[in-house]
């Protein structure tokens, strides 16, 4: 425990779209320990996916990292070459599964073709010189599928993606992504497109396999309910910043940031039965027109003059619990309770 696998510090990233400059990540710092599950939550457009893509270095060309470090396993990923990323990181130590499994697999190749290609790449870098036959890789692919609970894997492996349901495709993706060598899994809204029962199954599968292989997970979602079940720690993001971060229990039990509280209040739950769910007024501001001061202040009912002027620092408000709200830091939580 408490041996950090991933340490991101001061990560700042812009999207350069012509003359417009959007700050998608602003001084993001956090760490993820070995075997831990860190949930990243926030509304759409908060920089969650950008964070995942930055770690595995698959950002679109318009993205530019301004400063910061992504130290993984003792090395700064931002300093590695493309070839090194391919050889040692992507699909090897860090795997990523994406939103919308419908499009995540290549529609015109069989599952076995796609899995064998990936297994071959992994094998090439892990055991150089050791040439395996196609048949061995195929067997390995079947094993992987079996491990994800796909029935009849020996037959299914020669199907095309369109012959699988969304949940099954995500199982295939997990089979590709997770192996004993994977130390970090980036799951970007991996279950958002699935229906609730399938979502629960897939999440259980991810957690079980990750526990078996000792894989840490960065679980990106906008569903706090899911995180309450599977995350060790939670990080709430808003407009490219971390607003709150801490152990799941304390973030969900006693949130310190009005935004986190609002997200929680907008979830249906036992306490809210019969009551109207909260909906946060307004929307996430466009990243090239962020308001000054605290970027949440236009939507925050507790905002005062100081919130318009000063950018709130992320401060440890409790043991292992950080929050970036000036109001909370100065006046205490009692003053801004939503309900």
């Amino acid at each position: 425990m408490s041996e950090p696998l991933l340490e991101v510090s001061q990560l700042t990233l812009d999207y350069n779209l012509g003359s417009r400059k959007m700050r998608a990540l602003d001084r993001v710092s956090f760490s993820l320990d070995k075997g831990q599950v860190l949930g990243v939550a926030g509304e759409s457009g908060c920089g969650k996916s950008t964070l995942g893509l930055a770690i595995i270095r698959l950002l679109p060309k318009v993205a530019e990292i301004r400063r910061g470090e992504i130290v993984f396993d003792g090395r700064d990923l931002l300093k590695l070459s493309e070839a090194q990323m391919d050889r040692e990181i992507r699909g090897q130590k860090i795997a990523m599964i994406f939103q919308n499994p419908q499009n995540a697999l290549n529609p015109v190749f069989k599952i076995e073709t796609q899995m064998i290609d990936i297994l071959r790449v992994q094998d090439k870098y892990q055991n150089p010189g050791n040439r395996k036959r196609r048949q061995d890789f195929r067997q390995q692919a079947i094993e992987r599928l079996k491990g994800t609970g796909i029935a009849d894997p020996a037959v299914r492996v020669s199907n095309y993606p369109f012959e699988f349901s969304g949940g099954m495709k995500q199982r295939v993706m997990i089979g590709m992504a997770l192996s004993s060598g994977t130390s970090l899994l980036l799951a970007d809204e991996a279950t958002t497109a699935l229906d609730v029962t399938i979502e629960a199954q897939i999440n259980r599968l991810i957690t079980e396999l990750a526990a078996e292989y000792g894989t840490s997970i960065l679980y990106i979602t906008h569903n706090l309910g899911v995180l309450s079940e599977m995350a060790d720690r939670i990080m709430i993001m808003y407009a490219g910043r971390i607003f709150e971060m801490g152990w799941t229990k304390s973030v969900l039990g006693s949130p310190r940031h009005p935004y986190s509280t609002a997200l929680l209040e907008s979830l249906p739950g036992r306490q809210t039965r019969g009551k109207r769910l909260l909906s946060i007024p307004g929307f996430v501001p466009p990243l090239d027109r962020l308001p000054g001061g605290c970027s949440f202040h236009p939507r925050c009912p507790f905002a005062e003059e100081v919130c318009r002027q000063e950018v709130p620092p992320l401060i440890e408000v409790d043991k292992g619990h950080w929050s970036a709200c000036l109001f909370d830091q100065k006046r205490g939580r009692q003053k801004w309770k939503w309900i």
Partner: protein
Amino acid sequence: MLKYIIKRTLWVIPTLVGVLIILFSLTYLMPGDPASIMLGPRATPELVEDLNKRMHLDRAMPVRLGYYLLGVAKGDLGTSVWSGHKVSSLIADALPHTILLAITSLGIAALIGILLGTFAAVRRESPIGGVVTIFSLLGVAVPDFVAALLLMLLFCVQIPLLPALGAGVEGDLVDIAVHLILPATALGIGWVGYLSRLNQESMLDVLDSDYIRTARAFAVPKRAIAYRYALKNAVIPSITVIGLGVGKLLGGAVFVEIIFSRPGLGKLIVDAVYARDFPVVQGGILVATILFVFANLIADISYAFVDPRIQYD
């Protein structure tokens, strides 16, 4: 797969029957009287009547259609009103030249166009992409008969390297190939441009897709991603266009065959139209249509080989 191929092939039959009926009706509407063309203006009424009877021209239109369909079914496309040769043998002489020209020009154009488009898409940041785009637009913009004339002026008149006329001596493969270079280039140059544009666009789309990102996230080598994973998806629209393009290509072949004095289906039909040689026009267009239908059949079948989702629809 086999079921799909059979199903798709059977669809050719109603298509062809429809084509036959339309074709027959169209020639029926054409002005001019075959008998007076064949026999000349000074033929006696008895002779004309005799010929009309022999060719069933005195019967009602549906009956004539029946005779025509029966003839086609037996492989008999009638006799040329002008030369007296069997239409089927005239076409049999001309067809190989046209097919050779079409396959060579479209085949090479497809290969070059698709590769060029792919290359331009993969290297989208480098100036190569822009060069390919300009070249493609140029190719699309120049009509094939203009290209034919320019090529002829350049390579036959200014720098006399290649033969200008004919299709080469029968049996002499080198001679045939040499005679094919200019017409095939003239006919194919627009296709290179068109297909490279099309493939560049669809390739750019595919390269931005989720499954390509997946492949990159698993460190699949860049070259394999572009030329295997992406290309197989990106090539699908091109296949449809190539199938449909055969029709347009046969149209273009008319000009090119005339300019280069090549024997061929296009030249045969045009000459027959000038001479009001109805059976030859009818037969020639029928064969051209059959070529088109079969080209689309082949396109649809290869479509299913590239995209497995097709055969289950």
